[in-house]
């Protein structure tokens, strides 16, 4: 009756990651969502705010970062919701493998499918918003580092609100304060780069934040989920 081959964390990790990627692949629409949102705001910006190239160039670095941040944030609400609704989350909690590791795969998949595409798309939209020459490389790099932190932080919020019948943007309220430093250093880096100032400090801080959250977030997420599932 009892197990002969020992269960392994590595297997659980891969199974979990595989499923996340499969699920996203099935919901291709969802995959595109953050991108569509990104695109949408970039279209609305000149329409609503200003079509002057000089003006656009000035607001572009900040605008791109703000939109990337909002896009991440808005894609987070569903992170654990469907697993919660259909009972899959219970099964994960009941798995003998540490929950913190299992959720890390979910966050990783989220970043892979939201943060990375956003990062890749940002330079293109930068052109549409007249982003000055010097900014592209750092825009890319800062987003790559920053979106990691955004996914990790956001997942904490998602875990804490999954038990609410409709978490919605309450999630936003919760994680917004945590996004502030990421935004400041991220957009700060791009602005500095455009004006020719050094950006090492900002990039170092973004990396440090990413590392710190990678260590802390999984435990907060797992804790939040365990509480939510028991409610």
């Amino acid at each position: 009756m009892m197990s002969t081959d020992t269960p392994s964390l590595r297997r659980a990790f891969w199974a979990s990651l595989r499923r996340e990627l499969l699920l996203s692949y099935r919901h291709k629409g969802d995959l595109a969502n953050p991108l569509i949102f990104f695109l949408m705001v970039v279209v609305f910006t000149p329409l609503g705010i200003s079509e002057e190239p000089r003006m656009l160039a000035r607001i572009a670095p900040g605008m791109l970062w703000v939109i990337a941040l909002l896009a991440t944030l808005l894609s987070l609400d569903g992170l654990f919701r469907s697993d919660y609704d259909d009972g899959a989350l219970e099964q994960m909690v009941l798995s003998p493998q540490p929950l913190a590791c299992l959720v890390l795969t979910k966050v990783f998949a989220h970043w892979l499918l939201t943060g990375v595409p956003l990062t890749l798309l940002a330079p293109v939209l930068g052109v549409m918003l007249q982003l000055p020459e010097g900014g592209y490389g750092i825009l890319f790099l800062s987003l790559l580092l920053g979106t990691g932190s955004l996914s990790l932080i956001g997942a904490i919020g998602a875990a804490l609100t999954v038990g609410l019948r409709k978490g919605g943007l309450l999630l936003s309220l919760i994680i917004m304060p945590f996004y502030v430093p990421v935004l400041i250093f991220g957009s700060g880096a791009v602005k500095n780069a455009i004006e020719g100032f050094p950006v090492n400090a900002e990039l170092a801080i973004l990396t440090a934040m990413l590392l710190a959250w990678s260590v802390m977030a999984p435990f907060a997420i797992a804790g939040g989920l365990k509480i939510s599932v028991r409610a």
Partner: protein
Amino acid sequence: MAWQWFHRLGSPKWFYEKTTAWLPWLGFISITLILLGSIWGLAFGPAEAKQGNSARIIYIHVPAAVLAMAGYYVMAISGAIGLIWRMKLSFMVMKAAAPIGAVLTFLALFTGAVWGKPTWGAWWVWDGRITSMVVLFLLYLGIVALQEAYQNQDTADKISSVLALVGMVNIPIIYKSVDWWYTLHQPATLKLTEKSSIDPSMGYPLLLMILAFYIFYAWVLLLRTRVEILKREQKTNWVQEIVAKG
């Protein structure tokens, strides 16, 4: 024994009975000090050289700001104690502390805005201090909203404690980043180690007001915690006895 004391503190009943005696004292002292400080500051303190009488708002603005920040740690630490030792009372303190903190933060923001109009010529400016205060306000709102959102009190307590804990790590980061970002606001003027850059004739009433606000905070926190205790323990015998007594 230390542990015995700790466990008794965890008992809402013991806490309720014990603190009944403190309440009038705290209330009396805090009100007296607030009155004293206000009269000193508003009536006898000098008008500020450049800003004139508008600077007197400092006697509310600064204590509110100081307590708003200190209040967050009170809230987060009591939440952490609740999570770690599964202590219900601690959760109640946390729940009681959140709205007080939010109100104090709002007060600091509001008085700041009112002060900003005569001095900076605008109600609102985006500078480091102010921004970090807005962020703190949002952190408080998040906790209050979570508490409201969960119908099950137990879950609400635990969930909002986790958030408060994560927030505690984040607060210093926010302050650092926002300060670094842009500054227009007054730097800290009251310093313990060096000589204060504020004139003592304004400094002393200000210090008095800060002390008064601390005690006032403790008083309100106790009051709210006791209400929370009664609400949650309403089905127990000892609460019903208290209610019966009137």
